[in-house]
């Protein structure tokens, strides 16, 4: 093949150059003769190659599949039928053999609101971090680039680079960048870098793995959507018949609900305990308890132009529970997931409010959600989610501020249906009735999630 290409290139070259230097007929004749010779050469070589290819094909045809079954031939065959070296797809040779796994996830939305999402505000719960409603109208969501590979025999590393649009500018962020041990003994592991904290059930899940387009209210209000920070994570898996994992994290404390990297850059820590098991072949469950303590210095929430600044300590307790059902555990055909989380938090410190100065703040808040998702037939799922928040009264000084809850607890419910042509694509329709950030608003939305390249396995 390469030879043929060469001939063609030579011919073009010769053809193009000929007028410039082939001045005499004799020279042209000589060239013609040379070309004829070349062509004859290649034709004989190609004929030889074709003959060898035919032979190879014939031999291949006589491989094991075509061997006639004869009584005692198999021992010999098992011996001669040598295992082949793990033959990948036309293995590339060169510097790129060690390329890490690379995947890209695309997300986009079309969302409609009755009220103006710019005025979205949950009384008593000024939103921080990434929390808030999806953009109105058509919008591109986070485009996530995932890169991962084993570093060596003892470490593995992961990088998530979302490309997001913030205030009209395209920004590449480092969402996750961590290395983790793979060879520690006794069921221990240590992760270092930037990662989603292991608290709760949904906190560690990337947005493409959520069952609804947005996070539950309690994640939005308490964790700024998801708690992500820099630090260290220890996990220990007990050597027991049942699943029991204990974990602890120490973190920089630079992200909501922490802020300002307090305590010389060790602003928060977390603890978690997780257990789970099976009930027969068809059911499995997981339950967890988590604790988060976050110190904040001038942590911003509420409006971006006139933020509320909190300095103090947040303590949070979370309980999560997930139940999954599939007939015989075969979730390809039909399956059902029930999931619920409860969170309680106390924030103790002071708020600096625009126009009001600094006020002491010590208040308890709680919230929960429950959701159920059912897949009746392959590819189609339907889901329901109910969300609720509740806040104590922070005191009369907070009247007419965004920190004062109204008499009724903010709530919301959502319905969704999604269709997945394969594991790598999903299109979702979602309806939400919101009495949290609005006074009763119907929202309709469409979302797509597409994944190309390597795609890591999902956790339970």
């Amino acid at each position, binding site marked *: 093949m390469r030879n043929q290409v060469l001939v063609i290139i030579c011919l073009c070259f010769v053809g193009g150059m000929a007028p410039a230097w082939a001045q005499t007929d004799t020279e042209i004749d000589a060239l013609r003769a040379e070309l004829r010779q070349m062509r004859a050469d290649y034709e004989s070589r190609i004929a030889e190659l074709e003959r060898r290819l035919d032979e190879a094909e014939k031999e291949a045809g006589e491989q*094991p599949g075509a061997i006639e079954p004869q009584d005692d031939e198999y021992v010999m065959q098992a011996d001669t039928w040598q295992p082949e070296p793990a033959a990948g797809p036309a293995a590339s040779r060169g510097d790129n053999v060690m390329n890490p796994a690379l995947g890209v996830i695309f997300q986009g939305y079309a969302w409609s609101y009755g009220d103006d999402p710019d005025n979205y505000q949950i009384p008593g719960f000024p939103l921080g971090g990434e929390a808030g409603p999806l953009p109105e109208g058509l919008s591109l969501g986070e485009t996530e680039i995932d890169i991962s590979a084993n570093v060596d025999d003892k470490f593995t590393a992961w990088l998530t680079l979302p490309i997001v649009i913030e205030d009209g500018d395209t920004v590449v962020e480092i969402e996750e960048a961590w290395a983790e041990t793979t060879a520690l003994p006794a069921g221990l592991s240590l992760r270092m870098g930037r990662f989603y904290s292991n608290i709760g059930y949904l906190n560690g899940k990337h947005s493409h793995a959520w069952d609804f387009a947005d996070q539950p209210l309690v994640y939005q209000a308490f964790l700024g959507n998801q708690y992500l920070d820099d630090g260290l994570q220890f996990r220990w898996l007990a050597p027991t018949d049942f699943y029991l994992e204990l974990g602890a994290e120490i973190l920089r404390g630079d992200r909501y609900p922490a802020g300002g990297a307090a305590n010389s850059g060790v602003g928060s820590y977390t603890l978690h305990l997780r257990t789970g098991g099976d009930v027969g072949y068809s059911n499995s469950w997981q339950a967890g308890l988590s604790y988060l303590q976050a110190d904040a210095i001038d942590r911003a929430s509420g409006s971006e132009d006139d933020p509320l600044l909190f300095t103090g300590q947040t303590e949070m307790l979370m309980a999560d529970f997930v139940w999954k059902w599939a007939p015989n555990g075969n979730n390809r055909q039909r399956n059902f997931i029930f999931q619920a989380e409860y969170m309680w938090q106390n924030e103790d410190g002071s708020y600096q409010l625009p126009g009001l100065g600094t006020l002491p703040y010590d208040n308890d808040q709680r919230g929960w959600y429950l959701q159920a998702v059912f897949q009746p037939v392959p590819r189609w799922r339907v889901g329901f989610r109910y969300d609720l928040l509740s806040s104590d009264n922070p005191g009369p000084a907070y009247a007419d501020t965004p920190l004062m809850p109204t008499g009724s607890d903010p709530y919301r419910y959502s319905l969704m249906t999604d269709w997945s042509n394969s594991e790598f694509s999903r299109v979702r329709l979602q309806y939400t009735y919101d009495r949290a950030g609005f006074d009763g608003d119907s929202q309709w939305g469409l979302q797509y999630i597409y994944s190309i390249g390597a795609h890591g*396995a999902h956790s339970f």
Partner: protein
Amino acid sequence: MKNTILLTLLLITPLVTQADLRIFACEPEWEALARELGGEKVDVSSATNALQDPHYIQARPSLISKVRRADLLICSGAQLEIGWLPMLLKKGNNPKVMPGSEGFLEASQFVKRLDVAESVDRSQGDVHPQGNPHIQTDPRNMLLVAEALSKRLAELDPANADSYQNTMADFRERWTAAIAEWDKRAAVLRGKRVIAHHKSWVYLENWLGLVEVATLEPLPGIPPTASHLSNLVQQFGHKGADFIIRAPYQSDKPSEWLSERTGIPAVMLPSTVGGSEQATDLFSWFDDIINRLLTAGGL
């Protein structure tokens, strides 16, 4: 807090069971093989059962704790378990069974894989670039994997190496005889045309000389669609093929639908041990596959 952790440790310690070689099999056929070759000296469990599609199971908490305590993992590999095994390994915190270590055995590495793609693109469906991973339906493959597994057992448990070797010799003899018997009985199946639900029978077809003429799935991993099925009716009209085969974990609706319209018998074949009432061990499993094909074909 420190006291709580210590207390938990104390409570847990007596629960840690002491056993022989603990083997985590990804699929029931490897569980059966490990039991066959390891006998009393191994403690084996399978992550999936015969009624589960091994492509799509959840990385459940119970499986994480099994991986944590395993001495050896045996899985089909070739990306069959890519949707869940990496997560189990990641959460299992067990360096003994990480890929590349002695405690990780990928069965498909020891056989000649079919359908190895030169280039892959997901528009072709959920294809496995390292070849078709459903290697277990050719009993000759089982023998190759058995040799590798037996060797691995002896390496991990050298005190019982002789015993593993003897068991292997015995299994080799019985299995070779069984293959010869199956070959004789299945000779009439050679050249029969098969419509498969999913491309998971290529090794069986290769062994018995069956010819796969179509699949119910329009593309690997994409469930059968009405339009694809009606095309198959047109294409295979009245008895244009000999069998429509599916695994027990696949819905029987598409194959029954096609069978009704074409007169081609629909057959459920156990794709692993436990896939049918009769398939209780490796030997009865292949007996049953052949029985079912012969019965359905009236042969």
